[in-house]
């Protein structure tokens, strides 16, 4: 798609919900954007760099808690918490990646999985209770639209989330297109050749992990602002699995993939719930497995296959 096409798509995405979506639908769309950014972060490290992480829910949690604590205890305005949360998450990601990234992908998967399991316990831990609010979590206020803009709080939160989301997607797209992006993919595909060409593998892997944690952390902040509430049990293993499912469904090493993945993880559980009230998880699982059989490369691979037949790519004449 051309650059103008993308800009038009962004404007449509911003305008359509503004005029047509109800409060709850708007909230769901806000979450879709949030998840898309989180999955984008996961995609950078797993899809482009080949490092499997099963614990990105932990970075989402750190981002969400950073925003909530700053807003609740230090009266920082919501928008100003984003850069702080990004920096905190990047540092945290760097530290976690440091021991694990020197090793094979499976070890990182295990470490991050353990991290995902440990996070709710750490958030509940009584030494941090003064800040984290313990089991109860923290309630934060919904931001008002700035400059007296004529819109509801929900609409503003959606637009704000969309804006931050677009910035994250553009930055990531530029990152993977450039020299660093090529180095990331070289490490994934041919680590030896990459090292021989002078890429500092351990350093680049750790940095990629930090950038990935940063994106997912920003998503966590956006999620906290949208939900207006953080609590330890919302950030356990299921959340990390949700991101991973979204990543796999969307397809690795793709910038548009996370959008499909986010739509899947936000809406398919509801559909599964409507099909079977008794065992929604089973329906969800079957749908997931079915999708893996139909498109082992995720939705992004379907898009790639379909692209030549789309009107804007068809040769005229």
């Amino acid at each position, binding site marked *: 798609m051309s650059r103008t096409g993308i800009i038009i798509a962004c404007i449509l995405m911003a305008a359509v919900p503004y005029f047509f979506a109800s409060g709850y639908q708007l909230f769901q769309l806000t979450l879709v954007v949030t998840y898309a950014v989180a999955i984008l972060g996961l995609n950078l490290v*797993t899809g482009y760099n080949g490092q*499997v992480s099963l614990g990105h829910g932990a970075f989402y949690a750190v981002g969400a808690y950073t925003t909530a604590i700053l807003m609740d205890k230090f009266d920082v305005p919501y928008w100003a918490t984003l850069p702080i949360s990004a920096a905190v998450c990047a540092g945290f990601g760097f530290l976690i990646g440091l*021991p*694990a990234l*020197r*090793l094979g992908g*499976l*070890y990182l*998967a*295990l*470490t991050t*999985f*353990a*991290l995902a*399991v*440990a996070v709710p*316990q*750490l958030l*509940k*831990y*009584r030494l941090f209770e003064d800040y984290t609010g313990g089991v109860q979590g923290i309630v934060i206020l919904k931001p008002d639209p700035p400059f007296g803009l004529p819109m509801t709080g929900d609409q503003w939160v959606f637009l704000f989330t969309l804006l931050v989301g677009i910035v994250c997607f553009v930055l990531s797209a530029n990152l993977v297109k450039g020299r660093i992006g090529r180095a990331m993919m070289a490490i994934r595909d041919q680590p*030896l050749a990459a090292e021989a060409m002078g890429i500092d593998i351990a350093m680049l892997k750790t940095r990629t992990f930090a950038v990935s944690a940063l994106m997912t952390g920003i998503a966590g902040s956006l999620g906290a602002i949208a939900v207006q509430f953080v609590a330890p049990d919302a950030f356990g*293993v299921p959340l990390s*699995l949700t991101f*991973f*499912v979204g*990543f*796999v*469904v969307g397809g*690795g090493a793709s910038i548009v993939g996370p959008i499909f993945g986010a739509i899947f993880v936000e809406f398919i559980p509801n559909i599964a719930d409507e099909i079977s009230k*008794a*065992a*929604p*998880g*089973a*329906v*969800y*699982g*079957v749908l*997931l*497995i079915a*999708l*893996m*059989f139909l498109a*082992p*490369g*995720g939705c992004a691979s379907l898009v790639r296959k379909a692209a030549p037949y789309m009107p804007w790519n068809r040769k005229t004449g």
Partner: protein
Amino acid sequence: MDGVLHQVFSGIASGGIYASIALALVMIFTATHHVNFAQGEMAMFSTYIALTLIEAGVPYWGAFAITIVFAMVVGTIVQKILMEPLMNAPVLASVGVFIGLLFIFNSVAGWIFTYTLKPFPTPFGEGGPLLGGFFSRHELGSTAITVVVLFSVWAFFRFTSLGLAMRAAAFNPVSSRLVGVPVATMLALGWGLASGIGAIAGMMVAPIVFLDPNMMGGVLLYAFAGALLGGITNPLGAVLGGFLVGIIENLGGAYIVGTELKLSLALIIIVAVLTLKPAGLFGKVLASRV
């Protein structure tokens, strides 16, 4: 001192269970280079089958045997129907399938058997503690069962030609196929075996933690940590690692971090192993030919 010993012994008992699951994980990992995230859920589901059989009046050991056979059949079917067609697909697709399976087993178990905690009978009797009061009867019995299982698996791989064929298929599929080993069948058998071991672990852990659809979550993590501590390339190491993690978990939970941070111990163990001795205590340092 008695308290410490008691913690060590119950650590050995739960360690045995981690060791079984760790062994199941390592078996599937060496054969396919996949980590089966649904391993714990499959074990949990088999345990429900055992409970249903026992409640229907089947004697314990009869139910025990039927459950193992059931678990092995399920494991084989899963491999044949779901994993084999994806053999040449990207690794991430099979991870997606594992996670899908995890959801399915968890949800179906909750649907059929409800999410309430259920007590699970122990075959070893409720009588008083043994060995000077350090071991409960169930702990002693389940450790014995675990040791027997682990020993038979080792003997199976070491001394039978089927075991040799399975090792060959995992080690070098192409050459194995050339000398006439049916690699696909061996992989399916490996899955069946791993699933059977998981079922035994499930039935041994259920009397301690009570049976519910989320029973295996923590167990799987400790098993991961055990496999890593012992060396994920080495089944015997994984077993010893499982026992060690059991002991560390119990001692740490009782004296250092308290029960509320018990699961975080697994994270600390994993990070410590990766930083200090990445190959694990008994693992081989893998060198790759350039």
